[in-house]
């Protein structure tokens, strides 16, 4: 009997959903707020996690050094801290038609003695330990490898001595300004120089004294040797990967390492907080689930009569439940989209606050956060499933 199955009338279906959604604006707002907040926090934490992981594994620094070359230390010989200066000439100067900036450094601990003030009046010598970074660059410029800002400089013309630049912290520590004469000494070797500029790097370089490589080698008594070569390789991550790989094949007795967006220290922090972020996301989703489920339980109570009536009019259980679950899914989608957008904006701010680097919006976060929100929304709507067992006659008798 009565063979015709219920056909789908999509227009009316969505019309009913629309009415269901706005039937109680206050409750709609609470549910959207709960789901949206959950989605926002989920998206923010997921974006931070994914962004950090990408930066850690695939992205290279686009500004400054992104490749380093250091002496390879074997387990037998741990004393090798320098490598041949001539390596610089073996490094390809081009990558995909663009110039590779190359700088080699020799680091040495020195004793710094300040000889005079910038005003020319002699005063008591200031002395202490410091680190000299002797450097020589080829291709590009020094600032391209080590971006910095000149915080103090003068048009110093020195004829009788060589010049050196000071990191901001060293200058501050020894109260030095451009124009002052200092002496750098390692054992019996001494090099006098005049401070030309004070540089700010915002890193460990602020503690160093920058001198030409030959003078530094003379000081440290390591002729023809360098401690480190830094490169700034332009191009896409894939191009840089290829450059590194080819360089490593070419220079077999040194270590060629990429410098990614995150440093190793930051990576350690990331690994520590990654689990915490995942747990936080799960807790947030669980709390959202309970919050929305409480609202949905209320909805289920309110809609008993409507469901009884729909059944009396010939509505099947699946047809009626489909309406309510579609409503929940729509709520999940809407709040998921809005929440994810807000969450990604939060993650950009949070990334800057935590890592000093604004997180990039990762598109994958949108579907993931939205699917999670829809799933939470659908799970929260489970109380509505109870409506399926309502008998219309019981509802009309006021028993259900």
């Amino acid at each position: 009997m009565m063979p015709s199955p219920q056909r789908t009338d999509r227009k009316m279906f969505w019309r009913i959903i629309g009415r269901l959604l706005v039937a109680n604006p206050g409750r709609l707002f609470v549910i959207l707020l709960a789901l949206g907040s959950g989605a926002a926090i989920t998206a923010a934490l997921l974006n931070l996690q994914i962004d950090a992981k990408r930066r850690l594994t695939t992205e290279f620094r686009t500004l400054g050094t992104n490749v380093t070359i250091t002496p390879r230390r074997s387990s037998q010989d741990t004393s090798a801290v320098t490598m041949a200066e001539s390596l610089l000439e073996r490094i390809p100067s081009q990558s995909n038609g663009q110039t590779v900036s190359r700088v080699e450094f020799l680091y040495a601990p020195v004793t710094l003695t300040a000889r005079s003030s910038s005003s020319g009046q002699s005063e008591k010598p200031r002395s202490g330990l410091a680190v000299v970074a002797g450097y020589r660059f080829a291709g590009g410029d020094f600032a391209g490898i080590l971006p910095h800002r000149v915080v103090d400089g003068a048009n110093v013309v020195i004829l009788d001595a060589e010049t050196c630049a000071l990191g901001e912290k060293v200058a501050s520590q020894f109260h030095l300004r451009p124009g002052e004469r200092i002496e750098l000494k390692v054992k019996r070797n001494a090099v006098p120089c005049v401070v030309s500029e004070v540089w700010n790097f915002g890193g460990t370089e602020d503690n160093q004294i920058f001198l030409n490589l030959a003078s530094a080698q003379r000081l440290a008594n390591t002729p023809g040797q360098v401690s480190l070569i830094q490169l700034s390789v332009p191009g896409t991550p894939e191009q840089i990967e290829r450059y590194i790989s080819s360089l490593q094949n070419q220079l077999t007795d040194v270590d060629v390492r990429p410098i990614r967006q995150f440093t190793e220290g930051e990576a350690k922090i990331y690994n520590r907080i990654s689990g915490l972020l995942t747990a936080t996301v799960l807790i947030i989703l669980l709390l959202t689930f309970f919050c929305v489920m409480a609202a949905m339980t209320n909805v289920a109570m309110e809609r008993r009569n409507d469901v009884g009536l729909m059944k009396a009019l010939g509505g099947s259980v699946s047809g009626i439940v489909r309406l309510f679950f579609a409503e929940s899914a729509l709520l999940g989608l809407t709040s998921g989209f809005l929440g994810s957008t807000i969450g990604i904006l939060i993650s950009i701010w949070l990334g800057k606050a935590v890592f000093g680097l604004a997180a990039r919006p990762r598109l994958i976060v949108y579907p993931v956060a939205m699917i999670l929100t829809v799933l939470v929304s659908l799970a929260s709507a489970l109380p509505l499933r109870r409506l399926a067992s309502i008998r219309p006659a019981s509802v009309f008798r006021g028993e259900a």
Partner: protein
Amino acid sequence: MSTLLQVPPQTTTTQVVIEGLSKNYGELRALNGVSFSIEQGEWVALMGPSGSGKTTLINILGGLDTLTSGRVMVDNVELGKLRESELVRYRAENVGFVFQQFHLVPYLTALENVMLAQYFHSVTDENQAAEALKRVSLGDRMTHLPSQLSGGEQQRVAIARALINQPKLILADEPTGNLDEANEDIVLGLFRELHTSGHTILMVTHDPDIAQQADRRIELVHGHVSIDTREGLPKLCPFVHPNAPEGDCCDVKPKV
């Protein structure tokens, strides 16, 4: 008021057959061996005191409730043997309900309430639903929510909804119970039109004047048929009237 939906003319046939129908709610017996039949196009007023089983009978006939024993046939379909899914289709296709409490969905407009019955029946037709509302003089109230309508208007929406799928059987449970006199007249006028156009109506009422307008009056007392005016004589049940003469047309023989 214009003519309501017409039922195709048919020769007189028995549309509803009820035989020995009983319904228990736990220890309580709401219906006890009820038997009668209703012809196609007949208007039957179902009367009786509160708790006599009128609404239970209507609910069973409408497929909203199950029976405990006996047999209920509507258009040669035995309701007691239908599965839940078949009952759903039965309600959608064969029955139009009009309730005392109107039972409109509060967040749907008058038009959408009518379309809801179409939606669960097959597919919606907004023009047809609008036409149904115009027929009950609510052409200017289509976009109103139930809360914006008077009781009489709500009941007229419910009637339009009950008729939209052209059901063979209209079950009305005190349709004028919550209405003032003016609205009662309007709603009864609609039922008269339905009757004239060939619909079968079973209407629960407490009002003898309304019952007077029906073709036939059946009275239930304590779950038994006590009066059926088609047979001309009151049916007195010995359980209710223990001194009634034996052999009276009760469904259950008295224990002597």
